[in-house]
């Protein structure tokens, strides 16, 4: 999961893809940061009742579980449907722990984690009182293969045996043989390769049950059949929605959701700047409101310095890594020594100040795996005082590498005021090391087209990423393996291809022992920095304001640091 936004518009929380989009632009805009708190410290626990309001400047991409792949929809999707597993109700690292949801446990692997078996709890019901069965979960996963519903996370469907040929339940009535349901409470998945992280993948909306009789294919997006604590009782796309209680949801079977408010009302067409003003003013029903929208950079100082507002500000890591990728295939950044000199010369400190400071950007990063993941290791292979960069050392490194007159590198910069300001500061810093930082301004609407096309991309490009689940397996493989390089829509923007590295990635993906896996991912992380594939810049943060009546809240890492709406209370 990840969150991000376009610099042109207030940040739209998303899972991985969008996170890329916004935060890469956020190099020029904002990957939030703050100073307040990551969780409700009032000691108040949730109380049932009341109406929760949700203010947003964008609607959910999709609420159909087969298509739900952004953090805001993922967070709200948990109100409407349950999945095999989900995340523990807690802020920070404890909230990244996977716990059973529909299932009785987090799954039993066999055959070197190529097979996973789950048993679901008995007596679980849909909104009409009918019983949830594993056949409905199988059907829900099968729907993700349909060409009609292509937007969901690809992990499970890419991994299942026979998935390459299967076209979904509308075309292939026989179903997918690699998902077995020997009875109504058991489900077994067979994967092509070891899938150690499957309990995480099973927390994505794709494993939500969908009864075949209730499937309305593309229209299901407007009215998913509820297995969660709420029913989507009205929905005007792009405008507003109302959720009311599902009387058949049984609190005793659900350890992940408090589901305290009786009603949830969302307004999803609001102006970003107006949302800030509403949350700051805290009038009327806005006292009961939550928002995922990050505080606008110009308001960050105000909301973190005014005690009355600060107490309602939630801040915490969003799980993102913001970096500058160096194209390993184009001269002069194809030379590892040039890339290493850039690492040393890079004026992180000055660039962060120009970008709005730590509250707006985030903490300095020195590796690719953010601290919110257990495989993160603290190391800094290119240390400089206060992260200010060391142009003298970098100049010497370049001279030793055969570039006594320095080098010229091209960089793609989003054509925004902040983007240009940051680029100018970096240019000045690198010039001291003899590096000519040649800026190529790119319109925001074309940025990802250009940097995602290796033939067109400059030497350096800004990028950002948030893991789809809190493990390095959704950071390193999609961003730094040979198979990830595409002629268009490329996300391995360093064009890094190293067969030995890929072999070790496969080994880490197959490792079911978490500690061993973390060690392997940590080594891979270090290798990326040794090879100077990217210049890590910030570990992103989120910062948002909540209404004064909101209680039992926390910044939920699996949802990009957004508030966990399944657990907030308005009383």
């Amino acid at each position: 999961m990840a969150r991000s936004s376009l610099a042109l518009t207030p940040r739209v929380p998303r899972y991985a893809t969008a996170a890329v989009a916004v935060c890469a632009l956020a190099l020029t805009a904002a990957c939030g940061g703050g100073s307040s708190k990551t969780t409700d410290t009032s000691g108040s626990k949730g109380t049932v009742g009341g109406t929760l309001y949700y203010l947003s400047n964008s609607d959910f991409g999709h609420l159909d579980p087969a298509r739900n792949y952004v953090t805001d929809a993922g967070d709200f999707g948990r109100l409407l449907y349950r999945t095999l597993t989900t995340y523990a109700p807690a802020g920070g690292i404890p909230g990244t722990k996977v716990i059973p949801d529909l299932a009785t446990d987090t799954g039993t692997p066999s055959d070197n984690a190529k097979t996973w078996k789950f048993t679901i709890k008995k007596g679980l019901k849909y909104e009409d009182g009918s019983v949830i069965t594993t056949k409905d979960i199988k059907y829900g996963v099968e729907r993700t293969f349909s060409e009609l519903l292509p937007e969901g996370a690809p992990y499970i469907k890419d991994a299942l045996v026979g998935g390459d040929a299967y076209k979904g339940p509308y075309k292939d009535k026989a179903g997918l043989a690699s998902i077995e349901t020997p009875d109504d409470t058991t489900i077994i998945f067979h994967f092509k390769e070891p899938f150690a992280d499957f309990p995480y993948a099973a927390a994505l909306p794709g494993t939500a049950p969908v009864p075949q009789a209730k499937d309305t294919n593309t229209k299901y997006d407007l009215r998913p059949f509820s297995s969660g604590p709420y029913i989507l009782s009205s929905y005007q796309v792009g405008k507003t929605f109302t959720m009311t209680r599902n009387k058949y949801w049984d609190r005793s079977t659900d350890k992940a959701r408090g589901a305290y408010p009786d009603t949830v009302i969302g307004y999803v067409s609001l102006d970003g700047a107006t949302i800030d003003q509403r949350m700051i003013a805290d009038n009327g029903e806005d006292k009961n409101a939550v928002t995922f929208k990050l505080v606008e950079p110009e308001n960050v100082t105000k909301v973190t310095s005014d005690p009355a507002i600060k107490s309602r500000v939630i801040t915490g890591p969003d799980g993102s890594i913001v970096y500058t990728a160096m194209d390993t295939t184009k001269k002069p950044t194809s030379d590892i020594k040039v890339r290493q000199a850039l690492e040393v010369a890079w004026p992180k400190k000055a660039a962060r100040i120009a970008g709005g400071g730590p509250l707006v950007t985030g903490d300095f990063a020195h590796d690719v795996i953010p601290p919110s993941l257990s495989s993160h290791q603290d190391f800094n292979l290119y240390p400089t005082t206060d992260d200010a960069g060391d142009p003298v050392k970098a100049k010497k490194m370049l001279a030793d590498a055969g570039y006594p007159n320095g080098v010229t590198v091209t960089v793609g910069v989003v054509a925004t005021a902040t983007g240009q300001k940051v680029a100018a500061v970096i240019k000045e810093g690198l010039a001291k090391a003899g590096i000519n930082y040649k800026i190529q301004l790119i319109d925001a609407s074309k940025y990802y087209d250009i940097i995602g096309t290796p033939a067109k991309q400059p030497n350096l490009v800004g990028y950002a990423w948030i893991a789809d689940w809190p493990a390095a397996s959704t950071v390193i493989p999609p961003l730094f393996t040979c198979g990830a390089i595409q002629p268009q829509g490329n996300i391995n923007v360093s064009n890094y291809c190293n067969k030995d590295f890929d072999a070790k990635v496969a080994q880490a993906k197959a490792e079911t022992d978490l500690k061993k896996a973390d060690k392997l991912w940590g080594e891979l992380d270090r290798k990326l920095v040794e090879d100077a594939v990217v210049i890590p810049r910030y570990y992103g943060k989120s910062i948002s304001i909540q209404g004064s009546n909101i209680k039992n809240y926390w910044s939920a890492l699996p949802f990009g640091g957004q508030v966990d709406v399944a657990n907030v209370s308005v009383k």
Partner: protein
Amino acid sequence: MTRYLVRRVLALIALLFAVLVVTFVIFFSLQSNPALKSCGRVCSPERLKAVEHKFGLDKSQPEQFVIYLKGFVEGRDFGEGDAVRRCPAPCLGYSFKSDVPVLTLIESDFPVTLSIAVGAAVLWLLMGVVTGVISALRAGTRVDRSIVGISTATLSLPTQLVGYLLLLLFCVKGGVAFPHYVRIADSPWGWFTNLLLPWITLAIIYSAVYTRLTRSQMMESMQEDFIRTARGKGLSERKVTYKHGARAALPPLIVIFGLDLGGLLGGAFVTERIFGMPGLGNLAVKSIVDLDLPVILGVTIFGAFFILVANLVADIAYALTDPKVVLQ
């Protein structure tokens, strides 16, 4: 009259066609691939090709243009086999981003824009004409000078400033609930109260022109010979003013009102964004950010259609209210 109408309607179609061509050319000059918007997180070349094929982006630009025009008359199918999506005639295209026909998006958002435009128009017309008449009848007095002064000031105010100031005054400081769109069918009172601030914002901006125009027209018409004749016949001053004076001042107002209303029906994006009203202006901005060409085209054509029709209606109304004008 009939010949005039036919000529104008043909000109309207030609202009719409020109708008369509220009929008198409501008979009393709961006040299960006909109298929990437629908391709997903990891966009394989095969998937990209499939998306391009689904939306017809694998064809040449002239071909795409012809297909677009054909779709308007016959409707279009996007995709193949089980994944086909039908876009019935008049098909204005299929949104890359939202995965629905453009007309569905417009139908969903137009009631918001219509609500804003009609309510604001009533308000600014009332405010503008009433203050204009008062100003004209009391020309040279303090009242007149105040009205002229205020209208000059409001005329130069940006919509954004007025909107945010009203929000600050009423909602942030005054404690009034921030507005959001409520359908008239769901709650007529909620619809009315939530639209008040957008209406007032637009009325403040637009009414200034009407005040000044009404004032100058009224002052001119009240000097005419027929007004003296009317007074000489012994008509009351009220009848002289409103039946004879005001009517003569009306035609230019009708023309400008038609154009303003037509323009607003195409979307008032600043007002819509500030007050969280998901209308056509909002849709247009989102589609531009998303490079969603079919939506950009659809909203542009829809907006242009209203401006052109409003222009035509205003011209006809002008002729009906001014006996000196004959349509040829």
